[in-house]
């Protein structure tokens, strides 16, 4: 490489490097920041490299259309607005879980064996409290898994603020189920089947939102986010299975 070419490149990097007294080139403060930033965010940069075919698939396009990106990757000025939305989702989930008589366990809902119409008020309150406790446990488990497996410690508070967003599909399911329950339509076989299919669909959507949230808030690759989401989902499934036995 000719000296002229080297000087051309040095000139391009003039804001990032500086020459020391020994005539050697070192990173300037800005260069150091740029280097650190690149090093710390390498996974975010890599994770944005979705293959074109994958990204343009109808399934992912559909999931992205249902992803409230604005509420997951919110800016500082929108924090208050985002907090209100998250609180509304949690409150709605709490009320609906109590009304439906469900024990919630991560993304699973277990029907109470007793007659829902004859349950005392205190039982409904207990179901509601379980929903909130379940939310906190779910968040803690995801956070612990991120720290243990991928050493992602940062951005915990913002992650917590956007975490209820992943439960919005489950709140919609609880609302639909409550309407079907209160109108008695749930007793019709085909409606019951649709209710089951909706539960599966909304569970998958919630898992996708969790994965996307992990990508945005924790800088994890989509694949890694999916691994955490799946480990927790099938771990909880195993526990639900044993509890139902």
């Amino acid at each position, binding site marked *: 490489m000719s000296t002229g070419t080297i000087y051309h490149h040095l000139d391009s990097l003039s804001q990032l490097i500086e020459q020391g007294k020994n005539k050697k080139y070192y990173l300037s403060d800005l260069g150091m920041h740029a280097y650190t930033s690149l090093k710390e965010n390498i996974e975010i940069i890599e994770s944005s490299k979705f293959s074109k075919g994958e990204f343009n*698939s109808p399934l992912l396009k559909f999931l992205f259309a249902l992803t409230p990106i604005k509420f997951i990757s919110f800016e500082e000025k929108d924090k208050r607005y985002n907090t209100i939305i998250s609180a509304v989702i949690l409150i709605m989930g709490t009320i609906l879980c109590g009304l439906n008589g469900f024990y919630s366990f991560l993304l699973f809902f277990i029907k109470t064996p007793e007659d829902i119409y004859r349950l005392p008020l205190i039982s409904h309150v207990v179901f509601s409290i379980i929903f909130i406790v379940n939310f906190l446990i779910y968040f803690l488990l995801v956070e612990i898994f991120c720290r243990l497996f991928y050493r992602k410690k940062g951005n915990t508070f913002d992650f917590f603020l956007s975490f209820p967003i992943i439960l919005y599909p489950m709140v919609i399911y609880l609302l639909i189920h409550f309407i079907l329950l209160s109108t008695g339509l749930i007793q019709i076989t085909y409606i019951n089947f649709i209710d089951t299919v909706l539960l*599966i669909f909304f569970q998958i959507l919630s898992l996708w939102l969790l994965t996307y949230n992990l990508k945005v808030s924790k800088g994890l690759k*989509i694949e890694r986010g999916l691994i955490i989401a799946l480990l927790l989902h099938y771990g909880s499934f195993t526990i639900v*299975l044993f509890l139902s036995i």
Partner: protein
Amino acid sequence: MTPINYKEKALNILDFRLVGLVGSILLIVSEFLPWFSEFSLFDAYILYTITAVEESFIFLFPLISGIICLIASLLVISNLEYKINSVIITLIGLGFLSLFLVDFIPGELFYLSKAGIGFYLCIAGFMIMIINIMLILIAKE
């Protein structure tokens, strides 16, 4: 002349993506094999439908699950680029199966020791599909 590396050759043939194919075929086959009596789940579905017992559709869930998982496996076999799509489709399939298992196993708890080959193949297929998801996610393009 370079020696043939049989280990590498075998690994190329035994692609990890075939795991998903095996798992989904096991799920489909289990539908037509005996579970807790000489009847298969498909027989049970027909029997319950004829006698107009509600929720007979749940006996078809392993079959639905197997078909969905098979589509997901074929997708990732055709092109590894679609691995996220494949994982999400597999999740939909396993969602049906997990709801079936939660609904079905507690009712048949006392007969678990007498379970037929269909039940074991279904559980094996379910576990293989979960392993398959992990293998796909860990795999590098």
